[in-house]
């Protein structure tokens, strides 16, 4: 568990620390998301859109932990085609592709996580927001179910639910 060792406020943190916290959150998200019949292969592939310090954080997790008892691969997404084999994609605020483009290329069975205000309303499943200097996250229930995924109640009770 990575998140437990981090302090909750993010104002005083530098970009890498913020990225570490978000990576830990993403790792924890996977514990409460049920991929159902998807994610049948032996790897769990996380795609990162945009040149974000989170790549480094996620790689550290991938080296240490497994998700759904699978080895974790972190890769960078540069084109729509890169999304195809991902189980989870993180749309960073450095991403140059438009959200609509990415969403249009995303097939069911992929959990979309973003970090910009309004993205959850726009269609990502989960979206990081900062409330009172604390890292929180929004959840779009329609997007989650449209992706064919199920989110655990323990996750949703902490989420800010949006339509």
């Amino acid at each position, binding site marked *: *568990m990575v*998140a*437990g*060792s*981090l302090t*909750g406020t993010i104002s005083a943190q530098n970009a890498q620390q913020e990225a570490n*916290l978000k990576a830990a*959150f993403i790792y*924890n998200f996977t*514990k*409460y998301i049920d991929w159902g019949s998807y994610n049948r292969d032996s790897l769990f592939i996380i795609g990162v859109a945009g040149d974000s310090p989170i790549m480094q954080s996620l790689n550290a997790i991938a080296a240490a932990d497994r998700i759904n008892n699978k080895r974790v691969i972190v890769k960078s997404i540069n084109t729509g085609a890169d999304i195809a084999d991902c189980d989870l994609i993180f749309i960073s605020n450095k991403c140059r592709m438009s959200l609509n483009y990415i969403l249009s290329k995303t097939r069911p069975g992929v959990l979309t996580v973003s970090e910009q205000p309004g993205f959850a309303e726009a269609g990502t499943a989960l979206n990081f927001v900062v409330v009172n200097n*604390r*890292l*929180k*996250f929004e959840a779009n229930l329609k997007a989650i179910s449209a992706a064919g995924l199920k989110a*655990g109640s*323990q*996750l949703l*009770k*902490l989420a800010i639910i949006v339509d």
Partner: protein
Amino acid sequence: MLKFNDISLRNKLILMQVFTSVVVFGIVFGVFIITDANSYKQRKVDSMVSIAKVLGTNSISSIQFQDPESATQMLQELQTVSPEIIRSEITNKEGQVFASYSKAGTETFSIPQILHGKSYSFVAQQLFVSNPIKSNNEVIGNVYLQVTLTELQRIKQYKYELAFILLLVALVFSFLIAVLVQGYLSTRLLNLVNVVRKIRKTGEITKAVEDKGKDEIATLIQAFNKLMDEIRENQKKKDEFIGIASHELKTPLTSIKGYVEMLNMLEQDPQKKQFVKKALNNINKLESLVKDLLDVSKIQSGQLQLEMKEFNIDELLNETVNASQMVSETHRIVKQDSPVNEMIYGDRQRIEQVLLNLLSNAIKYSPGENTVILETEKTEKELIIKIRDYGIGVAPEEQTNIFERFYRSNKVAVHISGFGLGLYICRDIINRHSGRIWVESAGKGSVFNFSLPLKHSPIQQIHA
């Protein structure tokens, strides 16, 4: 202080039974309360551990996503459901408090320090519980609960009161049962004891003690009855022997006395006459002893008959005083008080026998003195005759015994001959006249009293 041995058998039995039941019930109730309290505590521990587990499971995501508000809110809600939980705390992996909630007024001290690594602990009427929060077999924090056990105190209090009331009820019941049951044992023993007491007091052996049991008490009673039968049989034989012996002795004695009296009259030689007189004196003594034995035998067999008629008591008193005075060479017998002037209904000869007996006793038991006083006292209903001497007296513990058959004082330093039958015969005669006989003695000197009922008949002429 009251010794256990001084308590009566009856009360001992009751006491033992009541004591036993109190001890037994006390132990039972004690165990009952302790077990009850312990099982309550165990149930409390179990339920609190369950609550801690649920809290832990529900706070996993809160810890993972660093959301203490949601955890705090959960703890807050818990308080409304279980008010006995006065403090709840969730710590993270490093042991820092992640979320906590405590009731107002609750002292805050470190629960982990109280627990010392144990999963639960009872301290000062409070229960402390800890349960680790695990996610994928990894401990990510701890749940701590502080629970007041006021309910336990209340339950204990209630159980103590209940036990106390039940103990009182048990006490009353065991007392009642003991009172009922003890009779079965003690009545029979006390019956025997009462018979023994009666025999000791009256000297009369009554009928056999009845008992239907077959236990040790029955054996004791049977042995006692057998013993009493033997004693009664021996007494009967002895009485028979006395009767026969005194009769057989009397006949030749009367004949000897007759001849010696004749010899006394005929003998002229002073030397020989003196021998004859000495012989006659001893024959008279022997005769009075044999007469006493005969009287006792008559009393025992119920053959002593009184010849009741009215006679003048003053006459009798004067006669006996004079007769005693003639025999005594050492004492002066003084009759005090004015004449009684009353007629007595009774056996004149027997009353005379009593007077002579008491006067001769008074002389015998006051060696070295020279006066015996006869006094009379008249009340509404009876005449009391008192014979006072200044002799050795009668010890207090002997004052009732001296009227028994064959009783000889062992306190008397001087040796005085006799069978010890005189006072026994006197008592019997006086009792048959519905009178009383008793002795008053304080150290030196004694007063023998006997009373005769008065009828206040007119005085008859004194016969010449």
